[in-house]
């Protein structure tokens, strides 16, 4: 179990590095697939099987494809002299990001997570890891989280209707 965790964690990190370092935009998008799959594997190891499958379906099968098509349709030929990496704003943002990152790392390390009651309770009830989270997820979505669940329906309806509206704007016979 621990071995698999480290395996997939390393894989995910490597893929993330590949994502960040790849020169071509399209390689970036495809290495994102590796990141998403690695995260799905980590979800499985954490006992969240439903979440893992949903992650693959929604992100790898849906969002990623959208990103790739977006890149394909907008990418232009690479310029002769590309962006200068050591430009002024790049250095400032690099420093800011590094500061934030080190603060986060320090905060995570210094935070006594194991003393928290809810984590201690979860460690005692480790049995729940053995069973699938699917039935409990379903029941929770239909009881406790019913309202957010239904709100998502409105959210998606708004998004679809709006996206189609914005796409049609060239059709001058139907302006606002």
């Amino acid at each position, binding site marked *: 179990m621990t071995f698999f965790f480290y395996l997939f964690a390393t894989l995910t990190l490597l893929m993330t590095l590949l994502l960040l370092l790849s020169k*071509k935009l*399209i*390689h970036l998008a*495809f290495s994102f*697939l590796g990141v998403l799959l690695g995260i799905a594997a980590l979800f499985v190891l954490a006992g969240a*099987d*439903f979440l893992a*499958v*949903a992650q*693959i*379906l929604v992100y*790898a*099968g*849906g969002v*990623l*494809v959208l990103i*790739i*098509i977006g890149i*394909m349709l907008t990418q232009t030929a690479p310029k002769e002299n590309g962006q200068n990496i050591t430009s002024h704003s790049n250095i400032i943002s690099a420093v800011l990001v590094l500061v934030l990152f080190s603060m986060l790392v320090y905060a995570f390390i210094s935070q006594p997570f194991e003393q928290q009651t809810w984590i201690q309770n979860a460690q005692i009830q480790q049995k729940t890891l053995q069973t*699938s989270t*699917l*039935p409990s997820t379903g029941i929770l979505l239909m009881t406790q989280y019913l309202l957010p669940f239904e709100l998502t329906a409105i959210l998606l309806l708004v998004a679809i209707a709006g996206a189609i509206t914005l796409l049609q704007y060239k059709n001058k016979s139907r302006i606002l």
Partner: protein
Amino acid sequence: MWISALILLPFLIVFGLAAVYAERKVAGFVQDRLGPSEVGKYGLLQTIADILKLIQKEIIIPKGVDAFLFRLAPIIVFTSVFAGFAILPLSPMLMGAGLTTGIFYALAIISLDIVGLLMAGWASNNKYSILGALRAVAQIISYEIPIGLVVLSVVIISQSLDLQTINYQQGIHIASLIGGESEKNFLFGIAATGIETTQIGGFLTWNVFRMPFLWVGFIIFFIATLAESNRAPFDIPEAESELIGGFHTEYSGMLFAIFMLAEYGMMLLSAFLAAILFFGGWNTPLPNIGNISLATWTSGAPNTIYGEITGFFWLLCKVFLIIFLQMWVRWTYPRLRADHLFYLCWKVLVPFSLVLILLSSVWKLWSF
């Protein structure tokens, strides 16, 4: 579990060879000609010869392609289709991963092959390829929706995503299922009829008889999986007369063969899923009629060797019948135009499958 893993890959490859031969013969039959007849008796060795030729061929990587992605793409396509086989129960015992999320996992992992297709289209650096890939993506993503909705209505009836559980529910061995001891089947899934079919079995306990509207569901599923595996009449992504070969225009040798294998794998997988979701999986079609207990004779109890063999046999019969149907459709109907394709998906299949979900939920209430 591991036996299944060992069996499936050789099975898939052999099936691929046999299916290409069968397809040619079916095509010949439909078009009133002979099909392959030169190599071996009745042309039986034709596909073997073809695959030997493909193996010998050089894998041509054209100038200007993204070589890494070009090689990776067929692997991703095939892997994602093959990963879908992991959850298939081939017989009461012989199965891969007994996931609780079974069919949901299969739908999710199959959807990954779109990424591979896009990769192939982009890496080829060819207009035909990219057009084919974009068409394939639009088509596959659209047709995933009716598939998902129909599967959902089956899941409402069976109350489980686990394909093995769905199998058990559709036959006389329902009591062998953990937690299924008290479950009962009624004629057409309606408890009010008072006719209990739990021990009659046969075709009467198949999902299409437990909820008769699932016949419509099967038709939707069948059409949508045809589109999902890019087969005629939904083969606009690789339409030879317009796009040469779509996303696999530039592919040659074994890389091309892997694409073909993935396509046949997709056919096989969708046939398996259709057989399990609608037609009782490994359960026998013959019912017990009074003292003539055909169902008990033709399907052994789970955990016995006879049970395994009969289960495997019945499942394969159903699967091959559905594959024959797929080939028959391919050689009968002409290719759809792109707008007709999307009309069919969004304005016909999706509304019907939404109504089907509603009907299934009502139907489930009657079965208590």
